[in-house]
């Protein structure tokens, strides 16, 4: 049987379909570049939905991420965020959050201060922008307003009682309650299933009817994040209208709805904006040329060959497959770029399991120059047409620094600006 190869040319190839990759594609389209984006399911679906910029620095929780970035520049100049100006980071962040709104996911405008955002187990974290469906929860916490917290029979990963108990010392006016989700009796339930069901008016009415008798004067209700997938703000508005109360969402542990919302929204939006999106396969071969980058993607039935003038590598870390390791070394998987890492495996970890400083291997990743070009083995850029963004980069610890989304968005912006410059200069 003849196996076909589709040939495509693009100004920019984006390798990766996480937040960094999707942000890069959008930024590139904004500049009028043609874009082909390739990647398999990655870590985006695991996010809480919060868009962090920089929440923690040297173990301190930051109220002001922008001055935190200033501090980072003086203490840790190799950190990818330290390579950019606050102005550029703000431009990227504002654009990205506005885009989410355009995709039907309302987000708060990033301001000057971090906000205390709720987490599934009744803790909080600092973030810069949060979904409109979650904002009233942060507000209610700030005001210590009494609230009813609801969970569901069979739902794993979110317990109202646990949330209320752990919050009790800072937010005493919480009351837990449990409901059986209509139509999902006596079976394990997933937030995605509830959210999908809640997009139908019938399910919205059924749930509101179940909530009503629990209200008992409560004006604010916290629910696990289940208020629809494609139009959560509309689902929330409708449920608020039906119950007469203010509703807010609390993210659940993976597989949670906010991350799936983001992933599906990008899968909808990118093709609409003219991005050739291959969401099902990873790059099987990448070749650097002096005039660009050639990529091959093996599909089930045919192959795709992309000739791009430049590429942004946004392939993520271990979970997304951008990095992999054997027992001895960490490797970069797409182009076998050198990975900055401790000399030997002995240096990967710390003696203390929960060391708040993190492990040295957490900061492993690829080195870039000031123009976001990955460095080759000799310490000079591997190519003038290759750029990198996101958590595949070295010198950052996004988990502990609460900077995952910010790092992805900001470096995607930086990498795309640099890539556009290289294309235009040809």
């Amino acid at each position, binding site marked *: *049987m003849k196996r076909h190869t589709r040939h495509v040319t693009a100004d920019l190839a984006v390798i990766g379909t996480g937040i960094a990759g999707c942000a890069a594609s959008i930024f590139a389209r904004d500049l009028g570049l043609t874009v082909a984006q390739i990647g398999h399911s990655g870590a985006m679906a695991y996010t809480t939905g919060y868009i962090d910029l920089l929440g923690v620095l040297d173990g301190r929780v930051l109220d002001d991420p922008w001055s935190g970035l200033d501090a980072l520049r003086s203490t840790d100049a190799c950190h990818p965020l330290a390579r950019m100006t606050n102005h550029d980071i703000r431009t990227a962040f504002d654009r990205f959050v506005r885009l989410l709104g355009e995709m039907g996911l309302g987000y708060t405008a990033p301001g000057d201060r971090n906000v205390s955002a709720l987490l599934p187990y009744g803790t909080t974290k600092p973030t810069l922008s949060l979904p409109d469906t979650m904002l009233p929860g942060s507000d209610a916490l700030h005001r210590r307003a009494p609230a009813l917290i609801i969970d569901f029979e069979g739902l794993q990963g979110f317990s109202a009682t646990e949330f209320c108990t752990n919050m009790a010392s800072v937010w005493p006016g919480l009351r837990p309650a449990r409901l059986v989700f209509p139509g999902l009796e006596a079976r394990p339930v997933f937030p995605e299933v509830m959210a999908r069901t809640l997009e139908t008016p019938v399910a919205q009415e059924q749930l509101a009817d179940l909530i009503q008798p629990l209200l008992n004067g409560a004006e604010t209700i916290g629910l696990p994040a289940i208020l629809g997938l494609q139009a959560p703000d509309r689902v929330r508005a409708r449920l608020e209208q039906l119950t007469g109360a203010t509703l807010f969402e609390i993210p659940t542990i993976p597989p949670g709805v906010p991350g799936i919302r983001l992933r599906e929204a990008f899968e909808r939006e990118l093709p609409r904006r003219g991005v050739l999106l291959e969401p099902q396969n990873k790059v099987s071969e990448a070749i650097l040329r002096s005039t660009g980058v050639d990529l091959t993607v093996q599909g089930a039935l045919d192959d795709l060959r992309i000739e791009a003038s430049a590429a942004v590598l946004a392939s993520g870390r271990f979970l997304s497959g951008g990095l992999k390791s054997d027992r001895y070394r960490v490797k970069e998987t797409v182009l076998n770029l050198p990975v900055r890492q401790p000399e030997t495996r002995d240096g990967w970890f710390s003696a203390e399991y929960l060391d708040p400083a993190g492990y040295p291997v957490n900061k492993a990743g690829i080195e870039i120059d000031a123009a976001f070009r990955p460095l080759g083995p000799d310490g000079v850029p591997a190519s003038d047409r290759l750029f990198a963004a996101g958590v595949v980069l070295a010198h950052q610890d996004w988990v502990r620094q609460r900077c995952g989304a910010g790092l992805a968005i900001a470096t995607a912006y930086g990498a795309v600006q640099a890539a556009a410059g290289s294309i235009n200069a040809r």
Partner: protein
Amino acid sequence: MLKKSAETATIDFLATARALLPEGASYDACVGCGLCASGCPASGMFGMDPRRFINMAMLGMNEELSTTPWVWACTQCKRCAYICPMGIDVSLLVGASRSNWAKEDKPKGIVRSCAAQMLDESTSAIGLRSEDFVEIVEETADELRQNDPRFAEIEVRIDKPGAKFIINQNSREPAVEPEEMAPIWKIFDYVGADWTYASKGWAAENFCMFSGDDEAWRDMVKTRVDAINDLGAEIWVNTECGHSFYTLWKGIDRFGLEANFEPASMVSLYAQWIREGKLPVNSDWNVDNLKFTVQDPCQLVRKSLGDTAADDLRFVVETLVGKDNFVDMQPCRSANYCCGGGGGFLQAGMSKERRAYGKRKFDQIVTTKADYVLTPCHNCHSQIDDIGAHYGGAYHVTHLWTLICISLGILGPDERKYLGPELAAIGLPDPQ
């Protein structure tokens, strides 16, 4: 309920996984996140879901996995593999488990459908023999020529050597509703395509893959491939059907058969002909601005051609109904949920589970508020029709060929079975 008899062998699922997985992939890589289970409409049935299946395989719970009837509720749609960051494909293990069930314990409907395909070289799952197919096609073509002067000369060929296209035909049409074959003939006639049916291996279904009978699957594909090779067609066109496409190219691949042709989906051909101006369709007929959504067949999109096929499908539908009258389900394209009609579920006699599975599809459809669901797949068509009736949906389910012929003004009066009352009389020739 389905039950496996005690004497059936137990599979070592981890060893099976190692043998089946592509290089570099590993079930050990499962981080247990549950995205697969969250996105699987069969989760929770028979106390099983894809994550649990993998967990149990890791724990060596081979006996439980070898006997769970859940493998017949999983439609092998591969959405778990699509959504898993590690690309773990539970459907491969489900296929191995299905194969391992004793024939007498498997769902009888699927086994019967496969057995029917083995009866005759027609490969029809409802046992329609080659000579009957030829007769029905010839009679139906004669009626068309007599009843509609515009098609008095239409050529409907069988076994024409050297034709560019060879198309297959789902058995439902010749067996139950032969008039539904005519729209495709008219479309091929309209564009002046050089096409033929084959009297052997013409049927567009393959339940032997679903019944887990690899030998029969291979035989089925071989019969079809030989027929196509013998006639020397350049392009094999799969009708508006999902699994007959996947099972053929996958079968050729898997069993190492020699095929001297290119496989093509009918949908991609429609798209190509519209782009080339050969099928000048538009949405002028949709004066009431009826709303349409599409079901992406898993077998055609996610499992075969990817979003290229999804793009073609949307291009065809948006051209046909008007861009503003098209509403996508969410999620869709490669991320679409299976409707629950795949994997032989419709034939498995498990209506309760199948409809519970289909509830998620029903909710998706209702959310679009569409009046019509279009799908180039017979199993999707039947399932979406059934869950609509079961859960009280107000939508109709229709083939693409029907709308193409409406738009071209060539849809006959007896080719409107799947249209609602608002379209029942549209574009009919003036009786005067």
